[in-house]
């Protein structure tokens, strides 16, 4: 039994490496304290405080830079890929909190715990994205999930919100059990939970031929599949997305997915190459199923939130195509797509939040009839985000898909790429349905007036739109950043 030594220098280095996480958690605690002191009419200051905290976290992450910093004896690492995902997650959190300025007023979520839960969940995502030990990944996963369960059920009086929370919790906790059991089995076979160490041991046939290890990696994959909602582990997604307060839905789609894919990418890129023939078949089938089922189910939906939920399943499938391709090209495509998806998803939800007046039936597609000409800015923005989700140039969604399918073709998965393109073609139908309804359907009498957005809300929408267009027209620098990030992981 070797004693675990931890000197002050190592501790300081460890804390330095998790600086963004500490800023986010510190802000969450401050928000909870300020909540006690502020009078009821001053609660909107809490939102401003949260926005400032996340902005500070972004600055601290940039200050740490892309250099590799290991902390807590290799349990967590701030490297290029960690930085990329940290920035993606924090940007998503920032946009969500900016939209919260308006949403909280309308839907009664102007509460300290709402912001604190968003911040705590963000900190869990950051830990998950930077964890290099399966245990850190698991702890990050739980730290992000538990606040999200609360957030989904935040509208305590709305039956659908509670139902969504219950279904999400039951399946989420169940999948965490699989995830943990998988880690335990991998620990049994390898004697360690450190991802890079397992990766270096994978060259040894005794490890990857070990049935206990394979069972472990299978269970781990099931756990991940639940979190990123891959078919056939996607049943909770539409219910949780529809039931949750719309702002939380937007946050889940953008940030939770990014964090889960970050951890999955780390595991797949580092440990899978040795067992690739067996694993790529599994990933191939999962990707094909997820794309197809997601898109075809979305065709049948009349509720915008539910449609975007199925679309998020389909997008998880597209991202999995990049993972199946693997290597630097596949990794780069995945990173870029996760970033792009965060912006277009948040933007789309932001606009429908303004148009829909009520939770539940307010999100019916018929409610969007005639909006296009009467409110040209809102109509234009929603069209832009939906077109980008469909993957039509000159938007970022097109560039993202181009790189994902390109990586698949280069790795020899032509069939999968063809399937992906066919699926994108199918998806155009349901993405353009709201657009057609906005511009071509006659506006009914007494058309609801969209809510007047707050300035921060408008800024968040414009920033998302600008990001979608800029990444679509000039993706070079972001793609290069993504490539360097993947290389820093594989070196």
């Amino acid at each position, binding site marked *: 039994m070797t004693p675990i030594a931890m000197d002050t220098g190592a501790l300081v280095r460890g804390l330095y490496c998790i600086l963004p996480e500490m800023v986010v958690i510190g802000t969450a605690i401050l928000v909870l304290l300020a909540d006690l002191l502020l009078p009821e009419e001053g609660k909107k200051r809490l939102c401003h405080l949260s926005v400032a905290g996340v902005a500070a976290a972004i600055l601290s992450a940039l200050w740490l830079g892309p250099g590799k910093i290991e902390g807590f004896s290799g349990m967590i690492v701030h490297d290029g890929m960690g930085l990329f995902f940290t920035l993606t997650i924090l940007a998503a959190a920032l946009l969500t909190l900016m939209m919260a300025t308006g949403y909280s007023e309308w839907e009664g979520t102007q509460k300290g715990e709402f912001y604190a839960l968003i911040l705590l969940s963000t900190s869990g995502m950051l830990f998950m994205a930077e964890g290099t030990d399966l245990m850190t990944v698991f702890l990050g996963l739980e730290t992000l999930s538990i606040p999200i369960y*609360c957030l989904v059920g935040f509208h305590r009086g709305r039956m659908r919100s509670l139902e969504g929370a*219950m279904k999400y919790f039951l399946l989420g906790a169940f999948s965490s059990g699989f995830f943990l059991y998988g880690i335990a089995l991998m620990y*049994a076979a390898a004697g360690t939970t450190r991802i890079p160490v397992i990766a270096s041991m994978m060259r040894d046939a005794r490890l990857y031929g070990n049935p206990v290890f394979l069972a472990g990696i299978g269970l781990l994959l099931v756990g991940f599949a639940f979190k990123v909602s891959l078919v056939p582990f996607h049943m909770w997604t539409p219910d949780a997305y529809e039931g949750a307060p719309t702002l939380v839905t937007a946050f889940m789609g953008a940030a939770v997915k990014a964090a889960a894919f970050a951890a999955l990418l780390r595991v797949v890129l580092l440990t899978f190459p040795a067992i690739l023939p067996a694993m790529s078949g599994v990933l191939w089938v999962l990707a094909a199923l997820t794309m197809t089922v997601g898109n075809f189910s979305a065709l049948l939906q009349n509720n915008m939130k539910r449609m975007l939920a199925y679309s998020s399943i389909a997008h998880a499938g597209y991202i999995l195509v990049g993972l199946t391709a693997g290597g630097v090209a596949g990794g780069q495509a995945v990173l870029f797509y996760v970033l792009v998806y965060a912006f277009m998803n948040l933007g789309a939800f932001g606009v429908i939040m303004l148009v829909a007046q009520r939770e539940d039936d307010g999100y019916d597609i018929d409610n969007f009839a005639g909006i296009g000409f009467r409110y040209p800015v809102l109509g234009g923005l929603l069209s832009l985000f939906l077109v980008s989700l469909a993957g039509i140039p000159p938007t970022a969604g097109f560039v993202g898909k181009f790189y994902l399918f390109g990586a698949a073709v280069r790795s020899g998965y032509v069939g999968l790429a063809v399937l992906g393109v066919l699926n994108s073609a199918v998806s155009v139908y349901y993405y353009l349905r709201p657009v057609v309804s906005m511009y071509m359907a006659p506006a009914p009498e007494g058309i609801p007036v969209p809510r007047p957005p707050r300035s921060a809300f408008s800024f968040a929408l414009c920033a998302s739109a600008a990001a979608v267009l800029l990444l679509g027209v000039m993706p070079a620098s972001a793609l290069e950043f993504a490539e360097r990030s993947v290389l820093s992981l594989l070196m």
Partner: protein
Amino acid sequence: MTLDKFLVVAAALFCCGLYTVMTRRNAVAVLMGVELILNAANINFVAFSHFLSRVMGGQIFAVFVIVLAAAEAAVALAIFLRLFATTGTVEVDTADQLKG
């Protein structure tokens, strides 16, 4: 005591948990099943750490998992309590407003 016996107990516990989650319709019972699965993993961690590895890693993870399970149960019971206050039952099947 050998490692095998621990593993058999853990695997049995895992299967019990799985069976509970799959068959019970009461949300609290499903939660109990999930707890069984988590504890099965804990037994594995502690046993492997004791028999195979020289460092305490596994035991420490088990402590983390116990804390997490407690936090998860607290949140779950809060959600179920609200559900009970609204519908008067925590049967999973009665929550069926979300479909499609």
